[in-house]
């Protein structure tokens, strides 16, 4: 870069996130993968957007969920569009599965990190191909791994302990949804950027469905909540 023309910002270009999505939670279950995300787009401490879709299909076999900067996620979806398009153009009967998509995204994220210009997202890729279930995550610095259950953002702290306790290999669809909802409800209580409008996506060998947006009931009617300061005036 011509040092006369480039501004001081160009060579060290870590950005700041502006519009962000919060946690993604995903689990393997009996028939495939279940993934949950709320539909919030925060702008700093303001909950600015409440209908952001953070779970998207990728090709025939994969599902991607993203937390972090929404504009970078939208750009990643464009990269994935190109990837799938070119894969289809081979017209060879083969199609990229979740493992390949995960690997591609890992390379993208890590290489951007090396240029000090990250895509500010934590991504979760899940899917089923040829009977094999796959669930992996990539962070904005390129850290990647696979597991039976994953979470990003606040979900790391709040959802993972629940999943470690209660996840099993042979969860039915109903049990899986209930487990995800238990995690999402906890996030609603304790994550400031959580929004009570969520979607759950299911991907199996047959295909993908993303649920309509819906809200969870929350519970506030505990005796201890009624008059918490009665024993110690001035406390909270």
């Amino acid at each position: 870069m011509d040092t006369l023309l480039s501004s001081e910002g160009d060579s060290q270009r870590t950005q700041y996130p502006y519009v962000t999505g919060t946690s993604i939670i995903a689990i393997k279950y009996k028939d495939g993968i279940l993934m949950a995300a709320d539909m919030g787009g925060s702008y700093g401490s303001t909950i600015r957007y409440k209908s952001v879709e953070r779970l998207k299909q990728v090709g025939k076999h994969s599902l991607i969920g993203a937390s972090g900067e929404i504009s970078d996620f939208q750009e990643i979806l464009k990269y994935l569009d190109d990837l799938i398009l070119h894969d289809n153009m081979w017209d060879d009967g083969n199609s990229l599965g979740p493992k390949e998509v995960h690997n591609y995204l890992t390379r993208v994220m890590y290489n951007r990190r090396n240029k000090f210009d990250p895509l500010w997202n934590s991504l979760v890729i899940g899917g089923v191909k040829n009977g094999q279930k796959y669930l992996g995550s990539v962070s904005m610095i390129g850290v990647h791994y696979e597991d039976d259950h994953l979470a990003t953002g606040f979900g790391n702290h709040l959802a993972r302990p629940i999943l470690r306790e209660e996840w099993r290999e042979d969860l039915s669809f109903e049990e899986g949804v209930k487990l995800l909802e238990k995690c999402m409800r906890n996030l609603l209580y304790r994550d400031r950027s959580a929004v009570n409008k969520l979607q759950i996506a299911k991907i199996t060998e047959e295909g993908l469905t993303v649920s309509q947006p819906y809200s969870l009931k929350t519970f506030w009617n505990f005796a201890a909540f009624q008059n918490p300061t009665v024993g110690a005036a001035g406390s909270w």
Partner: protein
Amino acid sequence: MDRDATADVNAPHSMGTTIIGVTYNGGVILGADSRTSTGLYVANRASDKITQLTDNVYICRSGSAADSQIVSDYVRYFLHQHTIQLGQPATVKVAANLVRLLAYNNKNMLQTGIIVGGWDKYEGGKIYGIPLGGTILEQPFAIGGSGSSYLYGFFDQAWKEGMTKEEAEQLVVKAVSLAIARDGASGGVVRTVTINSEGVTRNFYPGDQLPLWHDEVEAHNSLLDILNASNPEPMST
């Protein structure tokens, strides 16, 4: 102290602003205030923040005046060429995505939030919000600028799907006027632009004709008018 009073007239021109775009049954209405400030000084009290891109697509600009102007100039230029090549009016979606491209790819250098609104024959009236960072979101209504902070609650309560043109216009004017009342960086007049299948209409609501809100009082030419209005006790002790 003195330094504060003279203000920084050489500070970058920024539009602390209130901008709004709403859809109604038939088209869209874009609204904005008219204040452009440099630091504490109001550099332009009658700016036009609603800028034309094509016959059927307009944008509301907020943030840095320079950045938003240059983005709109580039997108107008690209859309002009696109229209020639396409042979028919550009769609609102294309216009919005061109704005997104510039906003996203120059995210480290630009500081502008934009609302794109227009009408095309395929999708009718559409509003796209493009905040800082270059996220693009299609919305039934969008608010932006510093004044918008005061309008989230208002729109949560007052917004309805499928309003008439008159209802939507009144909503926009009321909203900008409420934001002007509380946001120091917004002020002046309220401008609106209505876009539908029939074309484009501009409206102008001068600052002195906007409704009065809490703790605001009626305007007069002079105290003397009040005194002379045969009022026995105009001055209290």
